[in-house]
C-alpha cells in the first residue's frame, strides 16, 4: 500500500511539470507573440509596462531561460495579472474558489444521492419500465447541454412558476455575510442570519440541480451495474432465505458492497463537474471560477485563461490521485497489479 502511494506521489510533480510545460507552450504561441499573453492590447503602447512585463517573465532572455522564469513564477504563485480585473490572477481565483466549491459540492451531493437511489431502483426492477425510464432520465441528464437545460429550468422555475429566484448567489437587496469560509450558506448560518441562509440555499438549488443531473447519469449507471453483479451472489440469496426484508437486503447487504466501485468515478465525475461548472456558472451568473474562465475567454484575457487552465489541471490531477488511493484502500487487487 505504502509503495503504491509513494509511486503515485512521485509521478505527481512530473505531471504537474508537464501541465506547466504545456501551458508555457500555449502562452508562447498566443497570437503569435508571447508578449500578447502577458500585456493587454491597450498597454502595448505603454513602453514602461511592456518593459516591466518583459523583465518579469524574462522575455528578453533565451527560450530555455524563459521557460525557467515561467516555471519559477508559477511556483511562487505568480500567474500573471488579469487584463480585465487588473488584479493578480491567483488572487482572483482564490476569491472565486469558494463559490465554485459550494456549487460543485452541492451538485455532487445531489447527483450522487439521487444517482445511487436511481441505480438501486433500476437494478431491483431490472428490464422493467421503471428501469428503462430511469436510464433514459439519467442519459438525458448527461446528454443535455447544461447551458440549455439551465436556461430552460431557470425559465420554468423562476419566470413561469416563480418558485425559485433568478441567477446570482444572493438576492440583490441582501448583503453577503462576513466571509469566514466563503460559502454563503455556511457563513450565513455562522452569522445566525436565517433569512440570508434560506436565500442562499434557494439560489443554490437550480444550478446544483442542473450540474448534479449530469453526475446523476454516470453514478446511477454504475450503481445499477454493480448492484446487478452483487444481487446475483450467494450471500444475497442466503440473506433472503433467512427472511431478511427486501429493503434490508437491498440497502444493508447489496448496496454496501455495490458502492465500492462507485468510489472510482468520483474522480471521473470531477471532469464532468468542471466542464459543467464552467457553463452552469456562466448561465446562473455564479461568481465562481467557471464564470471567471468564461468571461476571460470572451474578452481574450490570456493570463486569466491560462491561470484557470493550470489550476484546473492541477486540481484534476489531485482528485484523480485521491480517488485512486481511496480505491486502492477499498480494493486490494488494484495496488497489487
Amino acid at each position, binding site marked *: 500500500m505504502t509503495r503504491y502511494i509513494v509511486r503515485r506521489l512521485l509521478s505527481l510533480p*512530473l*505531471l504537474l511539470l*508537464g*501541465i506547466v*510545460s*504545456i*501551458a508555457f507552450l*500555449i*502562452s508562447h*504561441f*498566443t*497570437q503569435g507573440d508571447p508578449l500578447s*499573453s502577458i500585456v493587454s492590447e491597450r498597454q502595448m503602447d505603454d513602453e514602461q509596462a511592456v518593459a516591466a512585463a518583459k523583465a518579469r517573465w524574462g522575455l528578453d532572455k533565451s527560450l530555455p531561460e524563459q521557460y525557467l522564469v515561467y516555471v519559477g513564477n508559477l511556483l511562487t504563485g505568480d500567474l500573471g495579472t488579469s487584463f480585465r480585473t487588473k488584479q493578480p490572477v491567483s488572487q482572483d481565483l482564490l476569491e472565486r474558489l469558494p463559490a465554485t466549491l459550494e456549487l460543485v459540492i452541492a451538485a455532487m451531493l445531489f447527483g450522487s444521492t439521487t444517482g445511487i437511489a436511481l441505480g438501486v431502483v433500476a437494478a431491483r426492477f431490472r428490464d422493467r419500465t421503471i428501469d428503462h425510464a430511469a436510464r433514459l432520465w439519467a*442519459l*438525458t441528464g448527461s*446528454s*443535455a*447541454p447544461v*447551458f*440549455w*437545460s439551465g*436556461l*430552460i429550468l*431557470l*425559465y420554468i422555475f423562476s*419566470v413561469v412558476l416563480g418558485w425559485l429566484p433568478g441567477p446570482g448567489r444572493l438576492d440583490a437587496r441582501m448583503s453577503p455575510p462576513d466571509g469566514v469560509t466563503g460559502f454563503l450558506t455556511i457563513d450565513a448560518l455562522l452569522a445566525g442570519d436565517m433569512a440570508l441562509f434560506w436565500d442562499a440555499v434557494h439560489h443554490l438549488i437550480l444550478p446544483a440541480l442542473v450540474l448534479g443531473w449530469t453526475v446523476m447519469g454516470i453514478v446511477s449507471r454504475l450503481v445499477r451495474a454493480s448492484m446487478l453483479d452483487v444481487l446475483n451472489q450467494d450471500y444475497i440469496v442466503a440473506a433472503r432465505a433467512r427472511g431478511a426484508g427486501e429493503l434490508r437486503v437491498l440497502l444493508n447487504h447489496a448496496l454496501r458492497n455495490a458502492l465500492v466501485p462507485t468510489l472510482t468515478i468520483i474522480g471521473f465525475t470531477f*471532469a464532468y463537474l*468542471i*466542464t459543467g461548472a*464552467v*457553463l452552469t456558472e*456562466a*448561465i446562473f451568473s455564479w461568481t465562481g471560477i467557471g464564470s471567471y*474562465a*468564461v468571461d476571460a*475567454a*470572451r474578452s*481574450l484575457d*490570456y493570463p486569466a*485563461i*491560462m491561470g*484557470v*487552465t493550470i489550476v*484546473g*489541471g492541477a486540481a*484534476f*490531477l489531485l482528485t*484523480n490521485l485521491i480517488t485512486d488511493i481511496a480505491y486502492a484502500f477499498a480494493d486490494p487487487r488494484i495496488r497489487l497489479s
Partner: protein
Amino acid sequence: MSDVPALPRIRVRQWPAWLKLPVLVGIAIIAFWIVACLTIDLWPIYDPIDMVGRRLQPPSADHWFGTDALGRDVLSRTLHGARFSLMMSCAVIVCAVLIGSAIGAVAGYVGGIVDGALMRLVDITLSFPPILLAMAVTAAMGPGLENAALAMVIVWWPVYARLMRGQVLSIRSREHVEAATAAGAGHARTLVKHILPLSWSPILINATMDFGQVVLLTASLSFIGLGASPPTPEWGSMISEGAIHFYQWWICSGPGIAILSVVLGFNFLGDGLRDLLDPRSK
C-alpha cells in the same frame, strides 16, 4: 462429391439481439441529421440568415420554432446548424482517431523510450479538464471554428492513443503475430496487416460514444464565444443568443433539442455497437 444431394438451406431469420429499440431510435436520429446535413438546401424552409418574420415571435404555424431577435426562423437555423456542428464534430473525431491511433500503435509496437515519452505526453494532455484546455488553445490561437476544431483534436487524440496502445500491446503477443514475424514479415507489415485489423472495434465504439461529447464541446466553445461567430447558424452560438433573450425560451430550445437529440442518438448507437462488437462487456 457431385452425387451428394444438396441439402435444402434453412435460413432462420432472427432479429439481431443488439438491434434493440434504443439503438433503432439512435440510428433514426442520426440518419435524420445526416440527411438534413446533405440535403438541407432542398428543403422548403426559410432562409437561415434572412429576416423572414417579425422579431421574437413564439412558435406558430408559420414559424414552428418561433423567430429570434433578428426575425430569423429558429427551425431553419437549427436545421442548417447541423452542417456546422455535425460536420465539424465528424472532422474532429476522424482526425483525433487517425492521429491518436497512429501514435498509440507506434508507441505500443515500438515500446521502450518512444512508448514512455509518448504515453507521458498522453497522461499530461489527459490531466487537463477538456473544456479548459480547449478554451485555452482556442483563445491563444484566436477564436473561430477552425481553431476550435484544432483545439478539440488536441484534446481528444490522447484518448485514442491510449486505447490503441492497449490494443496493440495485447494483440502483439498473440501467436499469429509471432507466426507472421517468424515468416519474415517486416515491422510495418506486421503492424498494419496482422495487428491493426484486430484492434479497431473498441476504437469504433469509443468514437461513436465520443461523437456526442464532441458535439457538446463544439457547442460549448461557440456558446462561450470562441467558436462560430454570428450570423453563422451554429447551435452553441444560437443558444448564447437565446440566453440574451431569456424570456423568449424558444430561441435557445431549437438548438438545445437538436444537441440533445444528437448526443442521445450517438449514445444509443454506441451502446448497440458495444453489444455487437464487444459481447464480453455485458
